C-alpha cells in the first residue's frame, strides 16, 4: 500500500469536509461502541480476563523465538511448510514462487492486513496472477481500487449509497439499495472464483505453537472457502501472532470478537492444521505459512515492545475521537487510529510519519478499551520524545517549549510575564470577554473563541491578599 503518512494533517482536513464520511463514521461509532459495551457487560470478570490476555501476550513475546520454533516444528509435522520473511518484498517473493511452482493462475483472498503491508495484490497482479478479494468489504474496495480504512471493517468509510453506485457501475447491473440484495450480488460474483482458484490466501489472527495451527476469525464464511477449496493455501501473518497453547487461544478469543465487533464470538472461528489427510475430504494439498518480520523483531527489542501484544481488534480506533472524526485514510498507511499511530512510525520510520504521534489528544480512551492493555498514549508520548530528541519537530515548537520551561523555572520572571499576558489578553477580550482571533493561535481560533483571562493572575491577587 502506498505510504502517505507524512500528510496526516492535510488529509485530515480534507476528510473533515466529506459529509458521506461523517455519516459513515457516525454509523461505526453507533454500532461498535455500544456493541462492545454490551457484550463486555455480560462478563463478570472482564478485567481479570483482560489481565490474563495481556499476560499471555507478554509471556509469548518474552520467549518469542521459542514459541515460533515450536510452531514451525509442529506445523511441519502436520505437512505445512513454514517460510520466514524478513521483509515485505521477501514475503511477496515467497508467495510468487509458491504460485509459480504450483502453476497458479488465480488466487482468492480472505482479509489480511499483513498482505496490505506487503502490497501483495500488486505483486501478484504484476506477475500476471488474478487475485480476488472475497471478504465483502475487501471485495468492494478492490472494485473501487481503494485501500482499507479500518482493520476490521475495511470499507467503513463508505455509505450504502456509494456501494450501490459502485456495484451498478462495475457489475453493470440495475442499481440495488437493499443490503441483502447487494450482498447476494457480490456472492454470486464470487462463487465461481472460489471454484476456479488454484490458491487461497488468508491472514492468521493467531498461530498456535502447541498444534502448529493457524486461525482466522471471520463473519462471512469466505475465509473457510479460501482455506479449503483451492489446491494451495497460503497463510501470511506477523511473527508476533503466535500463541503458546489452545488454552491461551481460548482466553484471547473471549476478548477478540467482543472488543472488535461486539460479538460474544464471531460467526466463524476457523482453525487450520496441516494439509488434507488421506482420509479427509477437504483441505488443501499444499499449505504454506509465511511468518513476516518486517520490523517486528526490531520493535521487540525496543521500548515499543508492548505494541506487539496487539491482537488487531480495532477497539482503539472505534473509540478514538480523532479516528471517529477523520477516518482511517487520513492516517496514510495500513494501520489507522491509535495502534496505527504507534505502528506506522515504527514500521516505516519516524521521519516518514511526523504527524502521527501527535495526532491524538492522549485521552486514553484507547488504553482503557484495549483488550491486551497496551498503554497506547504512553507509547505515543515516547514517540514524541524520540522526535524531539532527533530534532524532528519544527524549530518554532522547540523554541516555544524551551521558552516555556525556562520561564516556568524562574518564578519571578514568570509572574511578571504571565501578569502582563493576563492583562493584554483580558484587554483583547473586550466586553464580550473573549478573543475571536489570535495571530499566534490560529489553529485554536479558527474554530472557537478563546475565553479571555480575568485580568490579574492568581499569584498577584493572592500576594495582595496576603499583604493585607
Amino acid at each position: 500500500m502506498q505510504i502517505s503518512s507524512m500528510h496526516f494533517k492535510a488529509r485530515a482536513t480534507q476528510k473533515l469536509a466529506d459529509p458521506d464520511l461523517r455519516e459513515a463514521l457516525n454509523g461505526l461509532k453507533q454500532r461498535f461502541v455500544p456493541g462492545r459495551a454490551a457484550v463486555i457487560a455480560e462478563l463478570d470478570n472482564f478485567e481479570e480476563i483482560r489481565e490474563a490476555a495481556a499476560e499471555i501476550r507478554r509471556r509469548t513475546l518474552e520467549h518469542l523465538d521459542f514459541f515460533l520454533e515450536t510452531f514451525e516444528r509442529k506445523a511441519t509435522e502436520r505437512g505445512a511448510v513454514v517460510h520466514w520473511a524478513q521483509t515485505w518484498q521477501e514475503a511477496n517473493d515467497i508467495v510468487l514462487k509458491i504460485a509459480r511452482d504450483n502453476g497458479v493462475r488465480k488466487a482468492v483472498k480472505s482479509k489480511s492486513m499483513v498482505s496490505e503491508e506487503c502490497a501483495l495484490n500488486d505483486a501478484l497482479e504484476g506477475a500476471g496472477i488474478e487475485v480476488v478479494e472475497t471478504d465483502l468489504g475487501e471485495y468492494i474496495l478492490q472494485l473501487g481500487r481503494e485501500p482499507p480504512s479500518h482493520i476490521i471493517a475495511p470499507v467503513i468509510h463508505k455509505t450504502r449509497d456509494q456501494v450501490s453506485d459502485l456495484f451498478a457501475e462495475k457489475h453493470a447491473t440495475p442499481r440495488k439499495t437493499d443490503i441483502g440484495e447487494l450482498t447476494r450480488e457480490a456472492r454470486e460474483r464470487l462463487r465461481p472464483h472460489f471454484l476456479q482458484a488454484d490458491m487461497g490466501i488468508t491472514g492468521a489472527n493467531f498461530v498456535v505453537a502447541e498444534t502448529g495451527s493457524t486461525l482466522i476469525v471471520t463473519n462471512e464464511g469466505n475465509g473457510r472457502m479460501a482455506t479449503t477449496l483451492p489446491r494451495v493455501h497460503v497463510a501470511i501473518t506477523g511473527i508476533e501472532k503466535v500463541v503458546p497453547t489452545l488454552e491461551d487461544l481460548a482466553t484471547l478469543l473471549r476478548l477478540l470478537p467482543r472488543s472488535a465487533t461486539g460479538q460474544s464470538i464471531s460467526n466463524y472461528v476457523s482453525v487450520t492444521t496441516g494439509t488434507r489427510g488421506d482420509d479427509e475430504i477437504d483441505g488443501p494439498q499444499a499449505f504454506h505459512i509465511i511468518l513476516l518480520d518486517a520490523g517486528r523483531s526490531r520493535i521487540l527489542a525496543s521500548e515499543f515492545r508492548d505494541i506487539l501484544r496487539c491482537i488487531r481488534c480495532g477497539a482503539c480506533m472505534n473509540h478514538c475521537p480523532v479516528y471517529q472524526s477523520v477516518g482511517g485514510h487520513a492516517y496514510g498507511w495500513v494501520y489507522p487510529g491509535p495502534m496505527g499511530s504507534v505502528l506506522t512510525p515504527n514500521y516505516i520510520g519516524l521521519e516518514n510519519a511526523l504527524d502521527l504521534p501527535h495526532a491524538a489528544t492522549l485521552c486514553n480512551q484507547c488504553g482503557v478499551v484495549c483488550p491486551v492493555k497496551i498503554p497506547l498514549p504512553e507509547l505515543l508520548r515516547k514517540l514524541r520524545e524520540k522526535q524531539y530528541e532527533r530534532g524532528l519537530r519544527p524549530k518554532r515548537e522547540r523554541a516555544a517549549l524551551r521558552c516555556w520551561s525556562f520561564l516556568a523555572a524562574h518564578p519571578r520572571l514568570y509572574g511578571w510575564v504571565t501578569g502582563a499576558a493576563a492583562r493584554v489578553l483580558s484587554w483583547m477580550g473586550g466586553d464580550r470577554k473573549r478573543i475571536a482571533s489570535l495571530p499566534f493561535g490560529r489553529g485554536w481560533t479558527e474554530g472557537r473563541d478563546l475565553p479571555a483571562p480575568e485580568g490579574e493572575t492568581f499569584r498577584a491577587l493572592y500576594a495582595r491578599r496576603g499583604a493585607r
Partner: protein
Amino acid sequence: MRVGLFVTCLVDLMRPRIGFAALSLLERAGCEVQVPGTQTCCGQPGYNSGDRAGARKLAEKLIAEFEPCDYVVVPSGSCAGMIRAHYPELFSGDPPWLARVERLAAKTYELTDFLVRIAKLDSVPGEYHGTVTYHDACSGLRELGVKAQPRAMLAKVKGLRITEMTEAQACCGFGGTFAVKFGDVSTRIVDVKCDGIAAVKADAVVLGDLGCMLNIEGRLRRRGDERTQVLHVAEVLAGAGRGSS
C-alpha cells in the same frame, strides 16, 4: 492537616477565581492551606510534547515546593494526573528521586477526589438554582478514577440538579497543543461534545479541568450559544460562580 494548593498555570493565568474557590473549600474542610509562592507549571506541556528534560526540570521544582505538605490538592484532573500517574515514569531509573516522587504522588489529589475521600467535606456554601451536566475530563476520569466524586459534591449544592449528557466521558478534543496543531480536528471533536451538552438543555456544563473549560466555552460561544454557562466544579461548590437564577 497541611494541604498544599497547586493552582496550576492555567488557573493562575486565566481563572484566578477558581483558585480562590478551591482555597476556600479546603479551608472550610478544616485544612491549613499553603500556597507556595514560587509554583508555576507541573511540566505537562513539555512532557506531552516530547521535551522530557524540560518536563523533568519543572517536576523537580514542583516536588521541592510541595514535599513538606501532608497533601497536595489540584483543581485539575490532568495536572493531578501528571503528578500521580506520570511523575513516577518521568523519574523511573533514578532511584533517589523516584522515592521522593512516589511519596509525593501518593499524597496528590484532584480537588473533588480530596474533598470526598480525604477531607470528607459534608456541606458546601454554593447554591445553584438550575440544571447542570458534568463533563468528565479525560485524565481525571481515566487516570485518577474521578467520576462519582464531583457528582457527589455537586449533589450537596443547594438548588442544583444534575442531568447526564450522553458520552459525558468522551474527550472534548482539547489535548493540549493538539487543539492548536490540529485545530480543525479538535473543533470537530468538541462539536460532538457541544451537541451532547445542547441536547440536555442544561443551564451549565460543569467540569474540573481548565483546558476542557476553555475549549468547550470557546466552541459553545462560537456556535452562538450565549446561554449555557461553563463552570469549574470548584466555583459551583464554593458559590463563586455566576450562578443562574
